[in-house]
């Protein structure tokens, strides 16, 4: 006789009282495969934990975003935000789709070049650009978005000593009604600093001012701030046109679009509340189209959204290490991936799914990572099916920031694979080994034992 599937025994206290308005049971539907490839097969081949990217999903999302903007505005360009995910394979999917590179450091700049991006299709943002990095960017005719006056004067000096005019824009920070307003990057709009910077550039013979840039914040849950940002940049651009008869070629509205992850402390899930690309596109393009740009002089609209383009395409698959009870009786489930791999769990309530069918029984569970650190908490409290040691799980929407902000803390970073559009898997980043790390160290002779 075939034996029954064992589910660990559990007893749950029933809480009497008024049913909550939103008190319906949440079912955690299992995710057993990604693009047709079983999770089990992936982990057997590449180990656990394991990051998995869906090339199909990346391309789908990119096309969706492009369609939303280009159906409303004649001239749109996306630049892939390297800091969101600079795995080369991921970057190259975006580049194949037509995205330029948006980088915020010399390291990212080099990565874009090595990926084959032409220098004149790299947007160089960020507060830290060394003189050498700026010189290289000028030589490559990259678009340099100036962050502060020190950088502006560096560029004037580089321009004086070079036969190539640096192509520049300024980053503008502003009050768009969101809190906290980001005022540490770029030049402020309200106090006139942005105009001061523009004046200085216009009076420098050796700089070519091509655009204006802003990046109003991150995970912006509304579209109104984008309307305000677009309108303030449009006003600056039109002001430049009337004052200096200078037509800007582009307006770069940055990124910050929310993905469908749920922020901690927010009741409604991100899948229900995050604006769509259509919503963002409508807000931004309607303002630009209505602004008083001269006939046929609508500037190119550049977007640098990262999170909303890649979050959905990334998965983290892993295995339950153990389950235990906390002092108050609450179940604790220890996963083999913690905040070291999932930096975003500091601000998201991540969507953790069983990777095999489970019964409808649930219990109150906290999810911890494997680190010997009290802060290693993935979810503090979920009603969850009864996981056991060895059970597989999948965390969805982890494509943004985790493979750039992950930590090599007490353990090694795992394999990353990509599933192509034909369902073939490719290892796109090898797991680290002790040798990976040790080869960067050296021990002085007198300390050798």
């Amino acid at each position, binding site marked *: 006789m075939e034996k029954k599937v*064992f*589910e660990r*025994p*559990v*007893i749950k206290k029933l809480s009497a009282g008024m049913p909550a308005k939103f008190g319906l049971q949440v079912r955690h539907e299992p995710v057993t495969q990604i693009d047709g490839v079983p999770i089990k097969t992936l982990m057997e081949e590449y180990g656990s934990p394991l990051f998995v990217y869906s090339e199909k999903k990346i391309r789908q999302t990119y096309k969706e975003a492009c369609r939303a903007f280009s159906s409303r505005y004649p001239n749109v360009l996306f630049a892939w935000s390297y800091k969101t995910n600079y795995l080369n394979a991921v970057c190259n999917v975006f580049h194949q789709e037509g995205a330029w590179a948006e980088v915020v450091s010399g390291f990212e700049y080099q990565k874009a070049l090595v990926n084959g991006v032409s220098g004149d299709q790299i947007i160089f943002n960020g507060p830290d650009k060394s003189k050498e990095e700026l010189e290289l960017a000028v030589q490559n005719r990259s678009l340099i978005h100036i962050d502060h006056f020190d950088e502006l004067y560096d560029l004037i000096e580089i321009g004086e000593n070079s036969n190539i005019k640096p192509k520049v824009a300024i980053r503008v920070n502003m009050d768009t009604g969101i809190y906290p307003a980001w005022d540490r990057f770029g030049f402020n709009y309200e106090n006139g600093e942005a105009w001061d910077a523009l004046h200085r550039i216009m009076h420098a013979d050796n700089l070519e001012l091509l655009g204006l840039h802003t990046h109003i914040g991150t995970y912006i849950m509304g579209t109104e701030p984008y309307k305000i940002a677009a309108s303030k940049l449009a006003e600056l651009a039109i002001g430049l046109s009337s004052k200096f008869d200078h037509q800007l070629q582009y307006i770069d509205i940055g990124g910050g679009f929310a993905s469908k992850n749920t922020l901690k402390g927010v009741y409604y899930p991100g899948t229900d509340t995050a604006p769509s690309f259509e919503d963002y596109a409508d807000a931004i393009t309607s303002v630009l189209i209505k602004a008083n740009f001269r006939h046929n002089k609508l500037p190119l609209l550049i977007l640098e959204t990262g999170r909303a383009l890649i979050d959905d395409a990334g998965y983290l698959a892993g295995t339950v290490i153990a389950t235990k009870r906390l002092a108050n009786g609450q179940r604790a489930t220890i996963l083999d991936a913690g905040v070291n791999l999932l930096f975003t769990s500091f601000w998201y309530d991540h969507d953790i799914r069983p990777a095999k069918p489970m019964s409808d029984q649930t219990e109150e569970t906290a999810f911890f990572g494997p680190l010997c650190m009290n802060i290693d908490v993935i979810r503090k409290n979920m009603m969850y099916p009864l996981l056991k040691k060895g059970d597989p799980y999948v965390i969805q929407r982890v494509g943004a920031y985790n493979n750039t902000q992950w930590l090599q803390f007490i353990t090694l970073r795992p394999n990353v694979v990509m599933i192509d559009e034909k369902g073939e898997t490719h290892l796109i980043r090898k797991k680290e080994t002790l040798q990976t790390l040790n080869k960067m160290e050296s021990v002085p002779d007198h300390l050798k034992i």
Partner: protein
Amino acid sequence: MKLKKNLAISETGFVFDPSTGDSYTLNTTGLEIIQMLREGKNPEIITRKMTKTYDVDANTFERYYYDFIGMLKQMQLVAPDEE
């Protein structure tokens, strides 16, 4: 390990503790174990029976059995002299 004598346990997995007024639900394996505990069966017999019925080895079962007993103690469903 003995359960409190006055617990009401239904065949569908509901438990009522008249001394506190609290109610509980059990999953299938929890119900089977609690019924055997009520019958006074010892851990060895329970393990034998469960490993025969379910796809689980004795060591794995023992781990979850004692975890379950811990839950019963936490919920004060065992007889006081047995705690």
